[in-house]
């Protein structure tokens, strides 16, 4: 058993850290994390990272990747997380893995180098009004017409669509089918005629979208993998999402700031950090973050060793998202009357980010599998309990 990173990996971490300390600004951190959209600063930052060869380090060299172990990709995410950021164009990284595994050579050549250079972003097109947790009941239809598919229907909660270039779209290609059979996966140019996008605003100010397809023509070469096998690819991509989007380092970033705040803020004659109840609740979150890191490390190690996972990535998502909510609740409790102050208000502590997390943490408990679906996965796949 060995939890440590190799010397070479640590050297990369060091070099990367120095770069991030210089280049990663508050604006870049918040663009993606808060789903404000990734614009000039974030894109520029991604291009710089790409030029260094630090994006997709585990991807094959023939498409511009680094040809190294996936551990390097995780180090990038960890170091960004420690500084309060995701990789700004993270959906591209998520779907890139599936393109590499199942996409045609043409698709790989067309998309992988551009993802690596930080030139393009994708948005996920899974959920529909009637297909949430029961994703296999999706209805959006894609019918063959010569060299094209004609796509019609409606998607909802498709979060990055207002700034991404491509829609990673799940649609039903077998019109008579129901359930998970008969679903295919497409890469659709988001600017295609017939697509309209309308915003949906969340309680924490993030934008997500409804997307309507009205006779949208998509070339057949943009089908990912085999026709009617898309649902398997979606499940695989969601598993990857679970370990690349949910990471405990981001929570540690917020906890550390909260601790710093408690060292400086006085209430009723003492510093907050002198209050045993405050110390206890911060200590509890700190321990849970350590545990979340260990649980995450297992899933990363399994991914890096090409081991088959059953429930391990799901546990990462479940643990990290629920811990984010406990962190938010703990922070709000400690901040007391200051807690509800919005960022633009006088006296708002920590730029209102704890109050923001209190609202935004709800999204992670729903997206990429609700906590309840995740628990089903643990029970059915992790413990082999019988299906109801």
């Amino acid at each position: 058993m060995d939890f440590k990173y190799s010397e070479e990996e640590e050297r990369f971490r060091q070099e990367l850290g120095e770069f991030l300390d210089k280049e990663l600004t508050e604006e870049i951190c918040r663009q993606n994390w808060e789903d404000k959209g990734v614009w000039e600063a974030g894109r520029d930052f991604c291009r710089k990272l790409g030029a260094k060869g630090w994006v997709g380090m585990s991807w094959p060299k023939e498409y511009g990747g680094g040809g190294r172990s996936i551990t390097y990709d995780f180090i990038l995410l960890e170091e960004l997380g420690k500084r309060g950021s995701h990789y700004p164009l993270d959906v591209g990284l998520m779907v890139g893995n599936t393109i590499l595994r199942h996409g045609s050579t043409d698709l790989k050549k067309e998309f992988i180098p551009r993802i690596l250079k930080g030139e393009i972003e994708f948005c996920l097109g899974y959920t529909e009004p009637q297909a949430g947790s029961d994703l296999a009941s999706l209805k959006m239809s894609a019918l063959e017409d010569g060299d094209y598919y004609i796509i019609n229907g409606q998607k909802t909660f498709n979060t990055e669509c207002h700034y991404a270039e491509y829609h990673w779209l799940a649609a039903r290609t077998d019109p008579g089918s129901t359930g998970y059979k008969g679903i295919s996966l497409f890469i659709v140019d988001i600017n295609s005629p017939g697509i309209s996008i309308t915003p949906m605003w969340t309680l924490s100010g993030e934008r997500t979208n409804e997307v309507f397809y009205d006779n949208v023509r998509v070339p057949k070469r943009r089908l990912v993998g085999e026709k009617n096998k898309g649902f398997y690819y979606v499940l695989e991509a969601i598993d990857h999402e679970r370990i690349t989007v949910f990471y405990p380092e981001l929570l540690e970033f917020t906890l550390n700031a909260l601790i710093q705040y408690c060292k400086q803020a006085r209430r009723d004659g003492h510093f907050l950090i002198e209050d045993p109840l405050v110390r206890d609740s911060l200590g509890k979150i700190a321990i849970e973050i350590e545990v979340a890191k260990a649980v995450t490390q297992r899933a990363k190690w399994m991914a890096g060793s090409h081991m088959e996972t059953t429930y391990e990535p799901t546990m990462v998502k479940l643990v990290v998202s629920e811990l984010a909510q406990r962190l938010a609740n703990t922070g709000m409790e400690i901040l007391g009357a200051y807690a509800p102050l919005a960022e633009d208000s006088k006296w708002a502590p920590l730029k209102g980010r704890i109050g923001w997390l209190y609202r935004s943490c709800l999204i992670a408990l729903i997206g990429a599998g609700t906590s309840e679906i995740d628990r089903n996965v643990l029970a059915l796949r992790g413990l082999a309990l019988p299906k109801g």
Partner: protein
Amino acid sequence: MDLSFSESQQLLRKSARDFFHNECPKSLVREMEKDENGCPPNLWKKMADLGWMGLIVPEKYGGVGGDYLDFVILVEEMGRACLPAPFLSTALGAMFLLEEGTEEQKTRLLPRIASGENIFTLALNEVESQEDPGSIAVKATLKGDSYLINGIKLFVPFAHLADWLVCVARTAKRTSPEDGITLFLIDGKNPGINYVPLRTIAGDKQSEVIFNNVKVPKENILGQPHRGWPVAKNVLQKAAVAKAAELVGIAQQSLEMAVSYAKERVQFGRPIGSFQAIQHHCANMLIDVDGSKLMTYKAAWMLSEGLPCDIEVAAAKGYASEACRRVTALAQQVFGGIGVIVDHDMPLYYTRAKVAEVAFGDARYHREVVIGRKLEQKMPKSWLLS
């Protein structure tokens, strides 16, 4: 990075599990709850013959020379088996000797630990002292070539069987509470010692140990006079992670029992494990078991490697303490009525979880350790604070 166990570690786990399955049935565990000594001598002898008492003792002192991670695997299996034996307290004795014993002490005592001939225990807790060195009141006064020890130690495991006690006593009052603490090796049969058995809900054997002018020769000091606390702290870290491993074993076994019952037990015409209410109980148990396990292995690995790991150690014991309590409670719930009957195995685990939870620092204690360490750390610059 490689989070798998080596072949020899897997073999150790398997042989331990098989051994306890055959040699430590629950009937024996229950019998030992009522037994005055609480540990079957035959079982102890067989464990010694397997080399387990000397697992962490170097070969030149008659041991096997395994590392701390091996030890943790074995302790986890003991938790699973509800082993009634002073294994951990004896191993802690070996750790104290290895940490700070003189060559003479090591040559004399370590082979006896490895052979199973000597039982050790740790006399640390007191009426008014759990983890804080400043509150240690058992006093050792130098008289000529010997110390006289007076006072009361509490919750000393298997003290009545111990050949040797490692006693943490105050020899001087200094400005720092950690200063002026000395470690003594005390002969368990010393006539000045009185043992009062303390009965617990798990039937494990703990004692109040009363020292009344117990004379201990100067040679029996472990390490330097007045400088015992840093040594104790090192060993207590290993003890905390070992307890966490015991909790992991308890939790893992409880989860497995509950899941297998949920697959068999039929209500409303179907196995109760097919109901989401039960599935989600089991999923919650799995999160706690895996979290405790991975954190414990990580801390054990760091201790094995000699890396700084105060936070990881505290996280392992702090988390496992509460997680195992939650797991055993949920397992009880899955078993329903049958689980609370005294002949059932669940009560053994439910009560042992509590005893292990409070040993070597409960969750609250370790949370304070973690926040204390975090406050000492230099925090990176953060845009949240700019």
